[in-house]
């Protein structure tokens, strides 16, 4: 399946000479389905963004989510960012995401490169230890005991270290590195470059796309992570955004009084809830367009080649 490296899903934009034109009915049907699919994804986002931007009166009149705009205000966002709880959670999530992505990507690139050289010392057992992660998960409780045993409970490290290495991403990187022609690396070696220099100067520049995609996967993972935080973070002041989202938006509970800021003890208004949702979506939406075109290239090669 090496042909998968050529951009999947692409085909010439015009009909081939032997192809018959679609019938009007067929076109209408297909158009309807496509429109419905796009609406199903964008519709909820539209109304959520709109509600978060609407003045309280509009939200009240709509009796819920706002479908028709009627004045725009940033009041909900202003409240969120003057509120210590939510703005702190945004900071925590941002910090964990940045640090985690850096650590994960670095560790994975180094590890994947070291595993991309068959025949090197301990190559097989080291590779095996990664591949085992695919087929067996030790279980929630032993991992939990390990994290508390290391004294990482209520520490930001507990949000990063247990899930820092994703076997999938390592394998994706590794198979990409293995596809780099050996002659290129050999010629660098003849010129006297060591492994570190080869990785930094030759392999990484040739693998920018796949590294970017892997970094994005890690970043999205850290930003979205809810489970680790739920398990390990009891101190509400260290909650990441995902826990706030659960507590405040999904369960509609007021935030714990001890740490509550301005809006803490009042029941959350819909506009504020939706503003939190928007903040939670935003980073993914911002990075997404930049790496989207590399998805198929990076991901499928790795997934299929294993």
């Amino acid at each position, binding site marked *: *399946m090496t*042909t*998968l490296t*050529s951009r*999947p*899903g*692409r085909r010439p*934009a015009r009909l081939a000479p032997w192809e018959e034109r679609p019938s009007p009915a067929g076109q209408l049907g*297909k158009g309807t389905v496509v429109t419905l*699919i796009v609406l*199903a994804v964008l519709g*909820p986002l539209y109304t959520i963004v709109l509600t978060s931007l609407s003045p309280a009166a509009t939200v009240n009149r709509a*009796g*819920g*989510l706002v*479908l028709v705009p009627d004045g725009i205000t940033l009041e909900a966002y202003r409240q969120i960012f003057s509120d210590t709880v939510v703005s702190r959670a945004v900071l925590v999530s941002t910090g964990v995401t940045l640090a985690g992505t850096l650590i994960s990507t670095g*560790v994975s690139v*180094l*590890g994947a490169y*070291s*595993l991309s050289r*068959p*025949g*090197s*010392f301990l190559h097989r057992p080291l590779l095996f*230890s990664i591949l085992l992660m*695919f*087929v*067996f998960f*030790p*279980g929630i*409780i*032993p991992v*939990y*005991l*390990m*994290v508390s045993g290391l004294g990482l409970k209520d520490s930001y490290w507990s949000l990063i270290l247990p*899930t820092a*290495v994703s076997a999938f991403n390592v394998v994706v990187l590794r198979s990409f590195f293995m596809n780099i022609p050996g002659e290129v690396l050999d010629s660098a*070696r003849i*010129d*006297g*470059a060591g492994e*570190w*220099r080869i990785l930094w100067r030759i392999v990484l520049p040739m693998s920018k796309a796949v590294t970017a995609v892997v970094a994005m996967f890690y970043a999205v993972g850290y930003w*979205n992570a*809810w489970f680790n935080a739920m*398990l390990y973070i009891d101190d509400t002041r260290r909650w990441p955004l995902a826990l706030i*989202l*659960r507590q405040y*938006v*999904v369960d509609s509970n007021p935030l714990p009084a001890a740490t509550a800021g301005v809006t803490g003890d009042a029941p959350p208004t819909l506009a504020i*809830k939706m503003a939190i949702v928007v903040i*939670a*979506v935003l980073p*993914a939406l911002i990075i*997404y367009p930049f790496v*989207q075109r590399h998805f198929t290239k990076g991901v499928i090669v790795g997934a*299929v080649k*294993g």
Partner: protein
Amino acid sequence: MTARPIDVESPPARDAHKLTWRAKLRRDRSLLLMNLPMLLLVLAFWWVPALGNVIAFQDYNPYTGGILESPVIGFTNFALLLQDPQFLRAMLNTLSITAFQLVFYFPVPIMLALLLHSIVSARLRAFVQGVVYMPYFFSWVLVVAIFQQMFGGAGLLAQLLRERGHEGVDWMTNSDTFILLITTQTIWKDAGWGAIIFLAALSTIDPNLYEAAAVDGARRWRRLWHITLPGLRPVIVLLLILRLGDALNVGFEQFMLQRSAVGSGASEVFDTFVYWSGLRTGDLGYGAAAGLFKGLVGLLLILAANRVAHALGERGVYSRS
């Protein structure tokens, strides 16, 4: 960075067996150093916990002894599990959710890929593709929050129904329709992303086959049936087998998050059972036993699925490269 001629003359792969392990250690020390951070993380958060599973065979008490001192009780925990109605319920739920999603989720990415592939305009196709991939990058908390705003008791759907004088519905707390709800959520979140691999497979089908079929008089639907679907067959079979191997993994957050809304009867799956029976009630050995049971059965299923894939001439995912 001094030149090391021995590397040039003997790159790792060729005559590795001729070197002593000392020589190899010396030669590959930078590679090993590069592997070290990953190795440490894997040791700490995979190997040690994997070995820590011995507590499943103990009457584990973290306060009066820990792993070394707690009494070993053999398979008692496992025997208790198989009599625990909650555990059996979790098992049944997990399997029925897998079965349900196999029928109602699995074909969706395939159909979506066919639809996307059939869009003639490249720009429109890229746009629609971009839109349908997007929810994959949302977290489950977010997806649940969005669904709640759409289908919950105070959500958009109920709101629109009330405006028209109907009674509002709350799909989010109805345990009878829970399986339908989570499948819808999975489709919304993952189907677009799932289509990628089928799109890749579609792009590898030789266009000459279509032309030949068209010359022979096969129209659109016949070409779909006789060329496109057979072309997709290997990928479909492979993913189907892998999904079966993964039958015990139905996801976790989706169920944790909605457990309080629909109750444990409908939403308890293996992983939530481990969490509640182990961490919440403090019976760590019992929870670990449930987790280990799931892990081992899952391991067997995956290995079996991979073997079947190989037997059918597919690559499988865990094959040696």
